[in-house]
């Protein structure tokens, strides 16, 4: 007897669990029960789990009966003639979707050849075992699983062509690759998933060698000529949005060039690019601090009398300006209405991103790296036939990661480029490496992919033969231009008077607890004090009550709010954070009395 659970809830018991679960499966194949239903017979515990809820990962398999797959050549022929669809096969019960639980009860054959009477299912193709992005990794069965999944994660971050109608779309943080190419080494998934209609990388020549140490630790060296020819070039789009919001009392924001008497008026120079309507014109070059959409808002706090006060000066500046470190060209201006019916202005700014030091590139095998040096083509190593690599990859990235697929793609790409055809690198169904090598030999190259190369600077022949060929490389969305940050002076927080945090706010880089400890350990006491001087303050202290006194700068008078002005008051230098601590103690009804003593 087994307990039966439907979506995790107990619904009853059955006498014969095997017969019961077989019956449900039978019904599902006949179409009596929805094909969303999955049954799992837990033989150890003796429970049956029936699931039909959402959120289960499922994959299709061919149903096998008595050692024979239900999918026959007739089906294939009809599929090719477009007489039936994949979904028809599911309806007929030839193919069914199993979830992770039901797979526990299934015995899946890898290929048709190994089918026995015990098998219940057959893989459609080995490729169906892995996900969409992972199946885009060529020769994936030659690399460790960890690297393959890193490779598939990296592809998600690659720049490409995300939508054809991008010029009229307003999306946040968009990158467009300028000359995307179809990969030479492909899997069938590239065709099936329409990847070839919107690819996200470029086929480039890669040499696996070291270059003056500029490609150590996962760095890569780029050829300047390749960059000038368009390798890795992309455009970054970012919209700025302003809405004319309505407030209580009939007041609204106003998109226009702000008057000079508006509260918080920046400077005339910042508004210079605005047209009469307060919006910037297309193709205007903008930089840091430039106003893109001029806007004014009504005062923040309205007293009851202010409603009748028509003084224009009470309005507040609330324009949209470019933040610290941003620049670009105005690409597209859109004036519409928001869902509340307010006037809405959206301005898209475009910025061309040419590969630079620190940009991130990757092949499809989890071999990501950052640009360490950009070299003139003249200084690049060259082969006997005069080919210079577009990118130099460090050999130290290979042994520990064991990404053999990366190495095979190099040969495969070379063969594909030389014989002008696409190479099939579908998982477990690849063009064999031996064939590629033979073809490479027949094309007049060394069969193992290496070539004699010459030092680009001295012209000397390199002692080692260099492994060189074509690999599909992608530019990842992490670019230095979006991340680079440093500061010497800058904005501080209102409450603590300490530097702000984060790149967006031009913040400081925190010298933390453990960093502080290193200063103490070195005995660099005065240097430590200097580092923490960011919130330094000088405050008067009443010697009588030990509390912070008041310095009236107008009258140049010192007095204590408790003891009056007939007491001795001296200045001390402390961190503002400590002054805050004293205030907080006072709020806890604790009297923190400062007792002053001459320092010397």
């Amino acid at each position, binding site marked *: 007897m087994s307990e039966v659970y439907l979506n995790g809830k107990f619904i009853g018991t059955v006498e014969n669990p095997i017969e019961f679960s077989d019956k449900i499966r039978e019904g599902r194949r006949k179409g009596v029960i929805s094909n969303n239903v999955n049954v799992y017979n837990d033989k150890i515990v003796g429970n049956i789990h029936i699931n039909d809820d959402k959120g289960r990962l499922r994959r299709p398999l061919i149903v096998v009966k008595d050692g024979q797959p239900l999918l026959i050549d007739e089906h294939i022929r009809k599929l090719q003639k477009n007489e039936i669809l994949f979904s028809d096969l599911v309806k007929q019960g030839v193919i069914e979707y199993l979830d992770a639980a039901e797979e526990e009860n299934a015995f899946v054959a890898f290929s048709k050849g190994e089918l026995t009477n015990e098998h219940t299912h057959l893989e459609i193709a080995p490729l169906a075992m892995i996900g969409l992005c992972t199946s885009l990794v060529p020769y994936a069965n030659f690399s460790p699983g960890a690297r393959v999944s890193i490779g598939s994660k990296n592809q998600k971050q690659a720049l490409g062509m995300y939508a054809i109608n991008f010029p009229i779309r307003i999306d946040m943080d968009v990158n467009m690759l300028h000359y995307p190419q179809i990969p030479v080494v492909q899997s069938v998934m590239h065709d099936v998933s329409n990847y070839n209609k919107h690819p996200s990388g470029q086929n480039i020549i890669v040499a696996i060698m070291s270059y003056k140490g500029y490609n150590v630790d996962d760095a890569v060296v780029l050829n300047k000529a390749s960059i000038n020819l368009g390798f890795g070039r992309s455009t970054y789009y970012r919209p700025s949005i302003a809405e004319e919001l309505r407030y209580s009392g009939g007041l609204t924001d106003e998109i226009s060039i702000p008057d000079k008497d508006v509260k918080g008026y920046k400077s005339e120079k910042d508004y210079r690019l605005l047209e009469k309507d307060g919006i910037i014109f297309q193709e205007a070059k903008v930089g840091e601090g430039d106003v893109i959409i001029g806007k004014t808002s009504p005062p923040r706090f309205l007293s009851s009398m202010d409603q009748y006060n028509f003084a224009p000066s009470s309005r507040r500046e609330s324009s949209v300006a470019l933040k610290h470190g941003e620049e670009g060209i105005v690409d597209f201006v859109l004036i519409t209405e928001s869902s509340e019916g307010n006037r809405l202005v959206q301005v898209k700014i475009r910025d061309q991103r040419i590969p630079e030091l620190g940009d991130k590139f990757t092949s499809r095998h989890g071999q990501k790296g950052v640009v360490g040096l950009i070299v003139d083509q003249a200084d690049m190593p060259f082969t006997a036939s005069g080919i210079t690599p577009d990118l130099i990859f460090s050999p130290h990235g290979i042994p520990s990661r064991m990404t053999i697929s990366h190495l095979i793609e190099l040969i495969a790409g070379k063969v594909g480029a030389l014989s002008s055809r696409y190479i099939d690198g579908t998982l477990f169904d690849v063009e064999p490496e031996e064939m590629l090598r033979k073809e490479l030999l027949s094309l007049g190259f060394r069969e193992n992919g290496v070539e004699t190369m010459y030092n680009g600077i001295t012209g000397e022949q390199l002692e080692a033969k260099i492994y060189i060929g074509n690999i599909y490389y992608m530019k990842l969305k992490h670019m230095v231009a979006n991340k680079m940050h440093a500061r010497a002076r800058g904005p501080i927080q209102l409450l603590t008077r300490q530097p702000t945090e984060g790149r967006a706010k031009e913040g400081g880089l925190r010298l933390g607890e453990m960093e*502080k*400890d*290193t200063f*103490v*350990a*070195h*005995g*660099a*006491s*005065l*240097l*430590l*004090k200097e580092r*923490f*001087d960011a*919130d*330094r303050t000088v405050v008067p202290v009443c010697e009588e009550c030990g509390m912070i006194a008041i310095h009236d700068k107008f009258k140049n008078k010192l007095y204590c709010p408790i003891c009056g002005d007939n007491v001795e008051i001296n200045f001390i*230098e*402390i*961190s503002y*954070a*400590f002054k805050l*601590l004293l205030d907080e*103690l006072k709020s*806890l009804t*604790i*009297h923190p009395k400062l*007792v002053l003593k*001459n320092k*010397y």
Partner: protein
Amino acid sequence: MNRLFKKYEGKLPLKVINDIKEKLPKKISEAKLKKILEEVVMEYNKMLVQPGESVGLVSAESIGEPGTQMTLNTFHFAGVAEMNITMGLPRIIEILDGKKTIETPMTEIYLKKPYSQGKNIKKLALSIKETKLNEIVSEFMVNIAESKIELRVDEKRMESIGVNYPVIQKCIKASFKELALSKKGDSIILKLSEKEKELNQLFKVKEKIKEVYIQGIKGITQVLPIKKGSEFLIITAGTNLKKVLELDFVDKTRTISNNIFEIASVLGIEAARQAIINEVFKVIQNQGLNVDIRHLMLVADTMCATGTIKGVTRYGVVKEKASVLARASFETPIKHIFNASLIGEVDHLNSVVENVMLNQPVPVGTGLPGLVTKVKREPEWLKNKH
């Protein structure tokens, strides 16, 4: 010659002087010896820590950084009687936090001469082990009709730990006076007195009697005789250092437990300090790490400085700190500030943390030296002139 050495006793540690004495050639002139000693004093002073060096923080960093690399595994002894010992980071935390009850208490018993060569080692070990009645009794039979309990004794087991029937009977008698004992074959029969002839009572006695103490040292739950080098010693799980040291076959100079608190109460705080150093060092070496022993000495010193063992926690070492702000900056700040305000505590800002909070130079390294001469305050007549 000896007078010369005596002169240097204040300048050099005794061990260094003894080393020089040992290594010195037989014939050496006084002048040459003086030259040597002067040179040694110079080198010795060079090696001393500079005033103002932040030794505490350097120790903390030197122990803390390798600690991040330590594995959390506990290792196992391979052997017949397997013993589990807490090792690695959990053990270090246990020691430095000053935990009173440790996870795996253990004693290493060194033996005196004939026994240390392996004489009667197994018997000796078993005689130390705390034995209870149910370990030598193979069966407890309850006779309800006659309100009797029959204990079938495992004679082999009895022999191996060296007890006989009279001893057992004496032990039972000691804790259950009202029971009538008799022996029949390999069994001992207990008869309840007429007064307590209830069925309930019978089963209660049966359970209680299992725990009757027969022999050995209380607290020692497991023994393991091992050979270390050319010498036999006994390792025990569970400790009772005081009782172990009272045994006459034990080498009292080397036998040690791994419970710091036990050592402190039996052998004193100096021994406990050394035990902390040894135990932590053992773990660090076991992990293949390299920490200078002087860092551990400093930690052990601060833990034992008050005469009792204080863990490095907010209830131990941190509580002893003189500064309110320093205590408040380490866990439960409000509690410390409230208590300080109740008694009107004064913080003299003498240490590092307080001064970092106030953004003042910390009194270590370059922040330490001050002026010896007193700067005169501005005279009155000058003040009025401004």
